[in-house]
C-alpha cells in the first residue's frame, strides 16, 4: 500500500509520521477508514492485549480484520461525531504513560489529537500516520462553518455558499485548514475545481 507524500508546505501545516509500536502498559488507537492498515501493520498479540481500538470505518471494510486482532477493547463508531464522547471519556480515564496512536484522514487525526492534548496527554506520547483520503477539514473564514472532507480547490462552503480557496494555513485548535473567498476581487470568476494536490 503506497502512502501519499504530501508536498512540502508552510509551518502551520501538520506533518505526520509512521506509527511504531511503543513500550507501555496501555495503548489507545484511534483510526478511520484506511487507517486500519497502519494498525494492522504494527499489531502483535502482545501489543493488542493492552490496546483499546476506536475505529470509524467510513465505508472501508477493515472492521472484521481489526476485531480479529483481539484487542483488549474494540469499538466501531458510525462517525467521528458519534464517537467523540467516548474518546473523551477514555482520555479522561487515561493513566500516566498511555500511548496514543492516531491514523487515517487528517480530519480524524487533527480532532482526536486536540482531544488528547486537552486531556493533558503529552505530545511526545501521541503518534500519527496519514492513510487514505487526502481530503481536508476546512473552516470558512467568513461564516466560520466547518466542512469535512473537502477534496477540491476551490470549493463551495457548505454553510454560506461562498466559493473558497483552500489555503495551507492550518489551525490545530480547530483541526482545520482555512478557506478564503476566491472571487472577492472578481465576483463570479471561479476557476474549475481540481484536486487539492493536482
Amino acid at each position: 500500500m503506497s502512502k501519499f507524500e504530501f508536498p512540502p508546505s508552510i509551518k502551520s501545516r501538520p506533518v505526520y509520521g509512521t506509527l511504531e509500536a511503543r513500550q507501555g502498559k496501555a495503548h489507545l488507537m484511534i483510526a478511520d477508514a484506511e487507517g486500519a492498515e497502519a494498525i494492522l501493520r504494527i499489531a502483535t498479540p502482545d501489543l493488542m492485549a493492552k490496546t483499546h481500538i476506536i475505529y470509524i470505518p467510513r465505508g472501508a471494510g477493515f472492521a472484521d480484520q481489526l476485531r480479529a486482532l483481539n484487542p483488549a477493547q474494540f469499538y466501531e463508531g458510525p462517525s467521528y461525531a458519534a464517537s467523540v464522547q467516548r474518546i473523551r471519556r477514555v482520555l479522561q480515564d487515561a493513566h500516566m504513560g498511555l500511548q496514543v496512536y492516531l491514523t487515517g484522514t487528517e480530519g480524524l487525526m487533527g480532532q482526536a489529537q486536540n482531544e488528547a492534548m486537552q486531556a493533558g496527554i503529552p505530545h511526545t506520547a501521541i503518534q500519527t500516520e496519514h492513510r487514505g483520503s487526502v481530503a481536508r477539514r476546512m473552516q470558512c473564514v467568513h461564516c466560520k462553518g466547518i466542512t469535512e472532507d473537502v477534496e477540491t480547490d476551490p470549493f463551495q462552503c457548505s454553510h454560506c455558499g461562498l466559493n473558497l480557496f483552500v489555503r495551507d494555513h492550518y489551525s490545530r485548535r480547530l483541526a482545520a485548514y482555512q478557506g478564503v473567498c476566491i472571487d472577492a476581487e472578481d465576483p463570479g470568476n471561479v476557476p474549475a475545481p481540481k484536486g487539492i494536490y493536482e
Partner: protein
Amino acid sequence: MTIQFNDETFRDDYSFHNSDWAIKRFPFPFHEDSYMYAVNMEQHRGGPEGSVYEKRFDVDEHYVSEMRDRAMVLADDPLRCQSLPHMTLAGWDLLELIMVSKSEDYPDLFELHRDGDTWRWVNKPLGIDDTFTFLDDTTLPYGPMEYITRQTQGDFCVLDQRDGNLWMDAGMVTTQADWSLDFDIGMNFFEWHAPVPLAHEKGIFVRALKFLLNIQQGAPARRLNWTMTVNPLLDTSPENYHKWGIQKTTLTPENIGAKQHLRVELQTFFRLPRSNGLVFPIRCYLCSFQDLMTMPKWGRRLHRVVRDLPVELATYKGFIDNRPMMLDYLSQFDDGLPTSPGVWPDLETEPPLSR
C-alpha cells in the same frame, strides 16, 4: 499640545482624514530606497517630541473615531476579541500597563487614582469614569483586556511564553492586515507566521523570536511593518474580505492619490510583570498617497520602493494587480534626485520636486 479629535469614519463614506500635523508625524517606514524583510527591532524608549514614538501608547486625532469603529466591528463579530482561560492575569497586566502609561504620558486626557486595590480610571476623550477592584473581573463590564483595549488604539496580541516559544493565546484584533485572530489563536510564533513568504528561509523568525523571549520588564522594543490599503478601511479582516476585496478594483488614475493608502503598523513589545507574558500592540496608521506626496523625500522614495519590491512581497501584501497603476502615479513624484538616509521627511533640507 491638546489634541483635536476628528469626527470621521473608516467605512462607508470614509471621511477619515489626516491633519497637517498627522501627515508630518506619519511613521514613514522606509529608511532607504528599497525594502526587504529584516529583524528590524530597536528599543522603545521614546523618540523625537511629537513623533509617534515619543509615548508608550500614542494617542492621536483619530482616537475617538477609531474606538467607535472598533465597537462596531465587535458588535458585528465578537470573535475579534478572545482570551483563552489562562490569560486573564495577563489581561490585568495589560490593563495596568496601559492605564499607568496613559495617565503619566497624557495627564490632561487620562487619570488613574489608586487606593489599594480600588482603582478609579478617568478617560476624558471617551467620557469614562469607572471605579473597580484591581484583579477582580466581576467589577468591570468586560474582561480586563477587552475593557482597556476598547479604549486604546491599535490591535493587541497577548502572548503566553512557555516551552521556549510565544503562543497567541489572547487578543483584540479589529484593524488587522488580513489575518484572523479566531483562526490563529493558540498558535505559536512560527505557526502564525507560516503564510509570510521568504522570511522563514532568511532565518528572520528564529532570530526575532530569540530577541522577543529575552525582552525584560521596563525595556520594551518596537518595529515597523507596512502594507497597502485601498480606502482608509481599518477592518481589512479575512472575515470580511468577501465584502472589502472588491474595493481594490475601484482604483483609477484619477482617484488613486486620494484612495490608495500606505498602511503602517507601529508594533511594540512589552513584558508583562505578573504573568510573564508579552503584549504586542499593533498600531495602524493610514496615509493617502496624495498626502504622502507633500513630502518630496517620501514621494521619491515610495516610488523606488514600490517599483523594486520583490513580486512575492507585493503579492503577499495584496497589491500586485494595482502595482502598475501605483507606479504610474508615484513616478510623477520621483525626479531621480538622491534621498537622505533615514525615515524623517527632512523638509528643510530635501529639495522640492524638480520637474
